[in-house]
């Protein structure tokens, strides 16, 4: 038997022998978390870990973490412009940095840094503005000129003779990627260990209400009484809110992503470019993982239009000439819920015991532990945790938006 060198990253860590139990729904729970994705599972984990609340059910309409959690491109960063965003995302990043130990699970968290490229004079202004804001918020960030960009990521084409030359980039060294499935399974395993019921193939079909309280959740597996309801349904939040007669400024759009075949390491970091709508990292096994901007129209179909991917490939080959003969192996789409100011909606609803967590757009994955932490606290104490307080539904009435479009509307 030959023992040729095993390619780096070919080995994935061994999984634990046991992950979670498929629970049968009980009649009543203190907390019912609707949505068994990253946010729902993280919320359940921190409810148990930080607040000792374990009489909890996590309801998933399909297979666990099979929504955006299974479909995202796993970028983790906290270099957002506004204090409010920086607060929640940086809290999340700090938790990411200790998450493998907390979960006792090899989630392949790899801090390799993220470059946000600037292609125009205005990109440069916006980038410097964001870097300076990050520094003052205690977030690692620097502005790099084209030469320094080439040092961090030699395969980026920084020559002046491309259509939109790279003028520089912001760099957050602590940014990284993680293995999305393992993250979800790690949270599920801890929650399951704590006695929380993880219930799959259980779709919410309605709510039992009593004045301004929700007393139960109707599901395809029967009605479940709930002390508190926490909504973590991402792209499908509007469907649930419609059942409650609550309106939120959400639009669900397809967001596509794709991978290449396995390649020898060529890409040491993560590169994002708004101007040409491309996002690339190289995952642990060696595949290039890419995402683009969201598809333009509303859709729950978990499929996008191919011209978006073609445009993305054109941008990728422009910025990374060496990618020319890499191959698109698989493409897919998730359903992201987008808000008018590109910031999430977290907090109270007109129902005193129903709490809302949605509108993360392309930012959901990176926020997972931070949101779970703050949302669990919100649910446990029945009031918004300070980190999510700025993201209440009421901001659309007062006009106190957290507009991440202008200077930092960065997908993923």
């Amino acid at each position, binding site marked *: 038997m030959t023992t040729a060198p095993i390619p780096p990253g070919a080995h994935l860590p061994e999984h634990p022998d046991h992950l979670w139990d498929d629970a049968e729904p009980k009649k009543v729970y203190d907390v019912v978390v609707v949505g068994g994705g990253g946010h729902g599972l993280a919320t359940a984990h921190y409810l148990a870990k930080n607040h000792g609340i374990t009489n909890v059910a996590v309801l998933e309409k399909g297979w666990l973490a099979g929504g955006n959690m299974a479909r995202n491109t796993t970028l983790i960063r906290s270099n957002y412009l506004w204090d409010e965003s920086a607060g929640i995302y940086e809290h999340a990043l700090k938790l990411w940095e200790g998450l493998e130990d907390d979960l006792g699970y090899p989630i392949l968290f790899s801090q390799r840094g993220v470059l946000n490229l600037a292609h125009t004079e205005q990109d440069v202004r916006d980038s410097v503005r964001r870097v300076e804001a990050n520094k003052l918020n205690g977030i690692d960030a620097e502005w790099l000129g084209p030469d320094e960009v080439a040092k961090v990521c030699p395969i980026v084409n920084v020559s002046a003779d491309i259509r939109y030359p790279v003028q520089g980039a912001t760099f957050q060294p602590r940014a990284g990627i993680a293995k999305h499935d393992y993250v979800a399974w790690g949270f599920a395993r801890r929650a399951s260990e704590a006695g929380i019921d993880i219930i799959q193939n259980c779709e919410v079909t309605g709510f039992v209400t009593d004045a301004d309280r929700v007393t139960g959740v109707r599901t395809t597996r029967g009605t479940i009484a709930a002390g508190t309801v926490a909504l973590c349904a991402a792209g499908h939040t*509007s469907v649930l809110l419609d059942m409650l007669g609550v309106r*939120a*400024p959400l*639009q669900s759009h397809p967001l596509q992503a794709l991978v290449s075949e396995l390649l020898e390491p060529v890409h040491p970091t993560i590169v994002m470019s708004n101007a040409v709508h491309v996002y690339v990292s190289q995952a642990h096994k060696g595949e290039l993982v890419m995402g683009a901007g969201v598809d333009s*129209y*509303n*859709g729950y179909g978990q499929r996008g*239009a191919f*011209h978006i991917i073609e445009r993305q490939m054109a941008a990728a080959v422009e910025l990374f000439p060496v990618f020319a003969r890499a191959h698109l192996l698989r493409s897919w789409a998730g359903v992201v819920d987008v808000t*008018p100011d590109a910031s999430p909606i977290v907090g109270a609803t007109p129902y005193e015991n129903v709490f809302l967590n949605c509108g993360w757009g392309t930012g959901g994955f990176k926020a997972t532990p931070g949101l779970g932490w703050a949302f669990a606290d919100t649910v446990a104490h029945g009031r918004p945790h300070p980190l999510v307080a700025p993201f209440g539904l009421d901001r659309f009435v007062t006009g106190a938006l957290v507009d991440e479009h202008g200077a930092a509307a960065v997908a993923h």
Partner: protein
Amino acid sequence: MQLIACPWCGPREETEFSYGGQAHVPYPEHPASLTDEQWAHFVFFRDNPKGPFAERWAHASGCRRWFTAVRDTRTHKFLEEVPR
């Protein structure tokens, strides 16, 4: 990569069109008389149904006319396209 039937130009590639969101959301008669909440609902809140949805589309790279379409957001399929 759908074919969208522009009521004027006929079926054209999706890439020629731009999306205008929910249809039939009229500009308020007297914005000044609205509460902040009512105004916020006009400015920011739109339906987001999983199923048939009446939307506004513009044939941006064609005749540049706006029209109304009913589309199923589950399949993305267009069910009906009518002028304005």
